[in-house]
């Protein structure tokens, strides 16, 4: 619900606020109140430590057995107890990058349209519709992907695509439906609202004086956007895109349902692939041996660390533009 007002937290504390803060903690009941709230707040750091700890300890057997080569070997054999996660790591990165390729222009288009070009009466409805996209559960996207997107791709998209670009290595092989392409498109539709919502907040944080100055110099509307608005919000927009990447990397259900779940590395987007999240979703309940389970925990650890790093980078970039605010947090 990004239509709510989000005020920037002032960089320096106002005198009123500092007076208010200095009044705190003088009374016993106040100290108790503060301690209780601090306890709640400490839940968050402990949560991240617990998640990291559990994943690390549980993946110790696999870490010991396979070492770092876990990440770049491709054998995944539960019978022989040999595990290498390269196909999943590859599939995760490939599907996410494909998704970004499709989603970024659309999302930036929505954000720029809403902040710069849209007539005032259209802003709320469009913003609301895009927010609705974010509210659709992942598993519903997956269902839509299986029964509507894949048949559509098979009949109307892949044949002409192959006719024109069939000679490239990216479009080799027979298209059966479940594929990297289907996974990438589903992911793209899913991350458009996130990137759009955050980008919109970033663009709204660009001072109006920037646009007015450019227009006053004789710039056309597009030139004002390109030369004044976009450069001002650049860090935040990149942050928004990286945030979308973080979402795509960890997305599970929709991808599991359409990507084909095959342990293979190939550059053709028409072939099935696998992702780290999909592997956990598919195999965790079947993993009966300690080593199998441990290997899946290690996949989870890699995924978690990857998304934490990606999200942290995104947040730092966004905070540079819109300092300290939970930009887009309502949409996420």
């Amino acid at each position, binding site marked *: 619900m990004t239509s709510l007002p989000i005020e920037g937290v002032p960089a320096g504390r106002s005198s009123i606020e500092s007076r208010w803060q200095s009044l705190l903690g003088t009374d016993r009941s106040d100290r108790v109140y503060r301690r209780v709230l601090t306890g709640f707040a400490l839940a968050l750091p402990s949560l991240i430590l617990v998640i990291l700890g559990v994943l690390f300890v549980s993946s110790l057997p696999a870490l010991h057995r396979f070492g770092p080569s876990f990440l770049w070997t491709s054998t995944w054999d539960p019978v022989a107890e040999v595990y290498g996660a390269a196909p999943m790591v590859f599939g995760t990165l490939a599907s996410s990058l494909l998704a970004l390729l499709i989603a970024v222009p659309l999302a930036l288009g929505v954000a720029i349209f809403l902040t710069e070009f849209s007539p005032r009466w259209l802003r709320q409805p469009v913003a609301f519709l895009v927010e609705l996209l974010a509210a659709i559960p992942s598993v519903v996207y997956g269902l839509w992907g299986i029964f509507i997107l894949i048949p559509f791709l098979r009949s109307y998209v892949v044949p002409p695509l192959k006719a024109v670009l069939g000679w490239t290595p990216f479009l080799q092989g027979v298209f059966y439906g479940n594929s990297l392409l289907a996974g990438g498109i589903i992911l793209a539709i899913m991350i458009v609202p996130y990137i759009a919502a955050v980008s919109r907040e970033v663009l709204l944080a660009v001072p109006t004086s920037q646009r007015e100055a450019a227009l006053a110099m004789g710039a056309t509307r597009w030139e004002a956007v390109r030369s004044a608005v976009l450069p001002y919000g650049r860090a935040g927009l990149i942050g928004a895109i990286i945030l979308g990447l973080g979402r795509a990397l960890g997305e599970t259900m929709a991808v599991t349902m359409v990507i084909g779940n095959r342990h293979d590395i190939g550059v053709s987007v028409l072939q099935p692939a696998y992702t780290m999240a999909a592997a956990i979703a598919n195999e965790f309940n079947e993993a009966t041996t300690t080593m199998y389970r441990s290997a899946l925990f290690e996949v989870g650890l890699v*995924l978690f660390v990857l998304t934490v790093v990606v999200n942290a980078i995104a947040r730092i970039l966004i905070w540079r533009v819109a300092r300290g605010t939970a930009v887009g947090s309502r949409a996420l």
Partner: protein
Amino acid sequence: MNGRASRRHLVSRAMTALIVALAFIAVLALVVILGDLVWKGASSIDWAFFTRNPVPAGQAGGGVANAIVGTVILVGLAALIGVPIGVGAGMYLAEYGGGRLGFVVRFIADVLNGTPSIVVGVVAWMFIVRPTHGFSAVAGSVALAILMIPMLARTTEEMVRLVPHSLREAALALGYPRWRTSLKIVARTALGGIVTGCLVGIARVAGETAPLLFTALGNLNFTLSVSQPMQTLSLQIYVYGTGPFEEWHRLAFASALVLMGLVLIISLTARWVTRQRYGSVR
């Protein structure tokens, strides 16, 4: 000079058209998806769908009463666990969050907001399912609560920060202790926003599937016991959607429509609550 100016305007026009087109495609995607769900799901929704439990695989008929009740119980329990912690952490950030701990907590909340939900699922499995030797609704609720907490912390903080300082000062000037000022004046004033944040958080986890795969697991029978595996609409959609039977696919689309309806109703209620409090904004 004239030619150059007109070319610049042409570029401006073209780019505007491009951006409008991109925005249009994005909105169109939503309309298509919603339309497909209604088109494919609506015909299967009848009284039996809501009141009956699933029938054995391959047979026609049956409903998802167990999944609807399961979703409500699981999400309700998750809210019971997650809302106090999330809102409490948000109050901390708004009231005392100026220092270093506030910065760290805020940053971690933002980072956790992007954590893959499947990872939370395996952690909940390790903590609850393994020690208790059984899948259970409680384990699922804990996983959902973990997903809710960082989101609620940030939205609560934003809402509480909107409360004008003059209100606190007035309360303090009247001799109210700070904790009562914080609870009775500040939190009370921001209540509409806090409730909105909670509803949006609940709507988001109501559709989660991945963290439930190894915790609530799913259950074909009707159960009210939270120590048993429990079915939810999201799990039902996954199992039925990926299953081999026509009948299942039909039920999956109907379940998807009901789940979407549930999520939309909660989201729209959230919007309405905000409107009541703050009027139409931005």
